[in-house]
C-alpha cells in the first residue's frame, strides 16, 4: 500500500480545532476496478458527535468509499487513521470490532431469516460461539432496537414479509443497536416515508449527542442540509468539497460541486425538428404517479432530468418498451405497441441503451463484435444464417466511428474499459437499420471524458438522421448541451418542461424542487 500521507500533509488545510480530533481520517485513497478508477486520492474526515454527509452522483465513488471505511474492500493506496492512529481493516469484522458499524442500503439483509436474526447478523458473522442463541439478541432488545426506529413489528417475523421501507428500518435498527463510535448510513432514507425519515434523524441526533460520529451518504439535498453538520462531496472518485461545515455551503454550490462544471460538453448544433414520430400515452410507472404523455419529433432530443430515485430512469425504460407498466401505450408513427415488449419495440426501430450496463447491457464473456451486434443480428443474417463478413462489415465501421479502444472486435467485452463497453452497447442500437427512436439512459455514467464526447457526437448524429432521441441522465451538462427540451421528473411523474437555454441554475432549482421551471 502506497503512503500518500506526506503528500497530503502538504495540502492539508488549517486544522479546525473546534471540532476536535477527527475520529476517522482517510487520505489519498484510491481504488481501481479493472479499467475503471472508482476512487482517485479521495479524502474524508469524520468528527465525533457530528453528522458528516458525503454527496455525489452515481459513480462518484461514494459506495466504494463506504466499503473501504467498513472494511468490505481494501484500497489500492491511501491511509486510514482511526483516532489519529493508522489502521487497516482486512474484514468487516475488524471494522465492526473497531466500532465502525455500517448500515447499507437494503443490501445486507437476509430475506429468509427472522427480523431478530437479521438484527444479529454481525454477531452471527463474527461470533466464535456455536450456539446461535448466544449471538442472537433477546426479544426485548430486538424490540427496543426496532422501537428506536419506530417499528412495532414482531421481531420473529420473517424479514421477507416486510415491505421495503420496513426492511430499511430494520437495517437501520441493526446498525443503531451495535455499540459504535462511527455509524455509517448508506442512503438510509431511499425507501423511507417522511415520518420514518424524521424518526431516523431523531435517533441519529441522539447518537451524536452521545458522541458518535455519523457518516451519512445521500442523494437527497433537503435532508442532507437538514441533518448534516459537515459535508464532503465526491466527483469522479475525487474529493471536491472536503469536510466543509454545512452552513458554509449553499445548495447551488453543492449541486455544482456534485455535477461538476469542469467537464466541458462541446457545444453542438442541434438538428432541425421533423414530424412527431414517437408518442407515449398514459404511461404510469407506478400506481400513485400521474400518467405521462410524451411526443417526440424526428431529429428531436428530449432530455429527461431527475435526481436518483425520481423515476426518470424508470420512465425512460418504459418508453423503450423495456419496463412493463400497468397502463399506457407507445407508438412509433401510427404503429402502436405495448410497454414491456422489447422484441416488438425493436422491430419498430426503438433502440435502447439501459442505465445499468452490467446487469442489462453487457454480455461480458462474449466478444466486442458480438456485443455490438446483439440487437441487429437479423440485419447480417439471411435465412437464419449469420454472415460473418457482413457482421464485420456492418459493425466495425460503427466501432471505428465510436473510436473503440482498442479496436479489436474479437476481444472479450469484459476486457474493455467502462467507456468502451458503453460504446459497444450504444453501437448495438445505432446499427439498427430501421432506427427511428433511441432511448438512452445514463449514456456516460462511469465513462471517461473521451468516450463521453464520442457518445454525445453519436447521439446528435443519430438525431440528425431523423431519429427521435430520449435522453435520461443525471449529468446536467449532458442534458443541457444535447437536448432540445428537458422534462423534469420528480416522484415518478413529469413535473414540468424547460428549455436548455434557461440555463443550468434553473434546472438545478427545478431538480431540487424549488420552483417550477
Amino acid at each position, binding site marked *: 500500500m502506497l503512503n500518500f500521507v506526506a503528500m497530503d500533509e502538504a495540502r492539508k488545510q488549517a486544522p479546525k480545532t473546534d471540532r476536535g480530533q477527527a475520529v476517522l481520517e482517510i487520505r489519498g485513497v484510491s481504488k481501481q476496478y479493472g479499467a475503471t478508477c472508482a476512487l482517485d486520492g479521495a479524502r474524508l474526515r469524520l468528527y465525533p458527535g457530528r453528522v458528516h454527509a458525503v454527496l455525489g452522483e452515481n459513480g462518484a465513488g461514494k459506495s466504494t468509499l463506504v466499503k473501504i471505511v467498513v472494511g468490505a474492500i481494501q484500497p489500492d493506496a491511501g491511509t486510514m487513521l482511526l483516532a489519529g492512529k493508522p489502521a487497516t481493516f482486512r474484514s468487516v469484522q475488524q471494522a465492526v470490532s473497531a466500532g465502525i458499524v455500517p448500515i447499507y442500503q437494503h443490501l445486507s439483509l437476509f430475506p429468509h431469516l427472522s427480523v431478530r436474526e437479521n438484527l444479529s447478523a454481525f454477531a452471527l458473522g463474527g461470533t466464535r460461539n456455536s450456539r446461535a442463541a448466544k449471538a442472537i439478541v433477546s426479544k426485548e432488545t430486538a424490540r427496543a432496537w426496532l422501537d428506536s426506529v419506530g417499528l412495532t413489528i414482531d421481531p420473529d417475523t420473517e424479514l421477507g414479509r416486510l415491505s421495503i421501507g420496513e426492511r430499511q428500518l430494520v437495517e437501520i435498527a441493526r446498525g443503531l443497536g451495535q455499540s459504535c463510535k462511527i455509524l455509517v448510513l448508506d442512503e438510509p432514507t431511499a425507501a423511507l416515508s417522511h415520518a420514518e425519515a424524521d424518526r431516523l434523524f431523531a435517533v441519529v441526533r441522539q447518537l451524536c449527542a452521545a458522541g458518535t460520529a455519523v457518516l451519512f451518504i445521500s442523494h437527497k439535498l433537503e435532508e442532507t442540509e437538514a441533518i448534516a453538520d459537515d459535508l464532503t462531496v465526491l466527483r469522479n472518485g475525487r474529493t471536491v468539497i472536503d469536510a466543509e461545515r454545512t452552513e458554509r455551503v449553499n445548495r447551488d454550490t453543492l449541486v455544482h460541486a456534485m455535477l461538476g462544471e469542469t467537464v466541458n460538453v462541446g457545444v453542438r448544433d442541434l438538428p432541425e425538428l421533423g414530424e412527431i414520430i414517437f408518442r407515449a400515452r398514459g404511461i404510469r410507472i407506478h400506481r400513485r404517479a400521474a400518467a405521462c404523455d410524451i411526443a417526440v419529433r424526428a431529429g428531436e432530443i428530449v432530455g429527461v432530468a431527475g435526481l436518483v430515485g425520481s423515476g426518470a430512469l424508470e420512465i425512460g425504460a418504459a418508453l423503450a418498451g423495456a419496463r412493463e407498466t400497468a397502463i399506457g401505450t407507445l407508438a412509433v408513427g401510427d404503429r402502436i405497441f405495448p410497454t414491456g415488449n422489447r422484441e416488438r419495440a425493436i422491430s419498430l426501430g426503438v433502440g435502447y441503451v439501459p442505465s445499468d450496463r452490467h446487469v442489462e447491457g453487457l454480455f461480458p464473456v*462474449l466478444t466486442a463484435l458480438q456485443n455490438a451486434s446483439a440487437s441487429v443480428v437479423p440485419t447480417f443474417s439471411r435465412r437464419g444464417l449469420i454472415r460473418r463478413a457482413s457482421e464485420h462489415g456492418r459493425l466495425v465501421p460503427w466501432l471505428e466511428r465510436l473510436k473503440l479502444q482498442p479496436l479489436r472486435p474479437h476481444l472479450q467485452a469484459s476486457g474493455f474499459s467502462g467507456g468502451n463497453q458503453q460504446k459497444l452497447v450504444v453501437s448495438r442500437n445505432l446499427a439498427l437499420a430501421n432506427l427511428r427512436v433511441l432511448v438512452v439512459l445514463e449514456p456516460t455514467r462511469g465513462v471517461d471524458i473521451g468516450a463521453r464526447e464520442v457518445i454525445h457526437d453519436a447521439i446528435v448524429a443519430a438525431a440528425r438522421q431523423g431519429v427521435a432521441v430520449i435522453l435520461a441522465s443525471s449529468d446536467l451538462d449532458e442534458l443541457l448541451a444535447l437536448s432540445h427540451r428537458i422534462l423534469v421528473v420528480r416522484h415518478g411523474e413529469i413535473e414540468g418542461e424547460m428549455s436548455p437555454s434557461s440555463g443550468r441554475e434553473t434546472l438545478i432549482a427545478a431538480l431540487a424542487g424549488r420552483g417550477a421551471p
Partner: protein
Amino acid sequence: MTMAAAGSPSIRFAYRPPASAAIAFVAFVFFAILVPRFPTLGNLENVIRVASILCIAACGQAVVLILGGIEFSFGSSVALASVVTVLTLPDTGTLGAFAVGAGVVVLVGAVNGTLIARFELPSFLVTLGTLMIGAGLASTIAGGLPIDAPASDAFSWLARGRIAGIPVPIALAVLSVAVLYFLLAHTRLGRFWYLAGANVNAARLAGINVRFVVFAGYVVAGAFCAVTALILTSRVASGQPNLAPNLPFETIAACAIGGIPLAGGQGRASQVVYGVLIIAMMNNAVVLLNFPVAYQRLMIAAVIIGSVLLQKLAGKGWQTGARSGGSS
C-alpha cells in the same frame, strides 16, 4: 494467434485452441507410450467409435450449458426411446421405428424447453423431474425387461454399418459436431444461444425472443440426444429400459473437461470433441491395461477434477464472477 495487449493481463482472446486440446494431446502421447496396442489403427477406431456415441449427446449438452442450463433427462429419454423404438418396430418398419424413437427424445426436450422457457423454472429441477418420469415410463412400458429387436441388418446399420468405409456412428458424430459448429458459429439461433446464456436480461432488452431461443435450445439438445439414442438402440439391438443412466453425467463431464464453463455464454464445438476424446481414451486405456474397476473410477474422478482445475488455473475464462472468497 494474437499477442496479449501490453499491460492488460485480464484480456482474453476469442480465437485460440482450447486448453483441453493440449490435455487431449498429452493424454494421447502418454497412453500411446504406456499402453500396449493403444496406438493401433483398430484400437483407435474403437476409441473413436465409443467416443462418437457420447460425443453426439454431448453436443446436445453443450447447447444447454451454453444457455446456462443443465440437462439431466438424457439419462432416461435414451432408454425410453430405445424401448419405444423396439416396440414399434414390428408395426412401422425400421425407419418408422427410428423416427418414433427419435421423436420421443425430441419431445422430452420440447417438454423441458417449455417448462424452462415459458414457466421460467430452473433447468435443474425440470430435467431432474423428466429424468425420473422418463425412467419410470421406460420401465413400465417394457415391463422392466430388455426387449429384443428382431435381428436385421437395417436395424443394426446405425451402429455397425459403414459409409464409405467409415463406421456410421463416427460419421454421425462428425456430422453432429459439424452441425453443432455450424449452429453455434454460423446461425442466428446459435448466436442467440450465446447471448441468452451470457446475460439473459441484456438479451431480452436487445430485442431477442428469449423464450423461443431457450425452447429451441432444449429441442435441439433433444435432437442430438435422439441420434445417440438410436445408435445405442441399434448397437444393443434391443429396447433397454436401463440403457445409459449415466449419460447426463458423462456428457456434463465431457463438456466440463473440454473446457465449457457451466456458467453459460461460452463453449465451442471443438471443446466437446476434446472432452469426449479425453474420456474415451482413458476408458479404453484402463481396459487395455486390464486395470481393476476401482482404479478406473479413481482415474476418471482425477481426470474430471484435474482437468477442470487445470483449465481454471490456466485461463481466466473460468472465472464467472470474481469476488474475493465468494463463489456461487
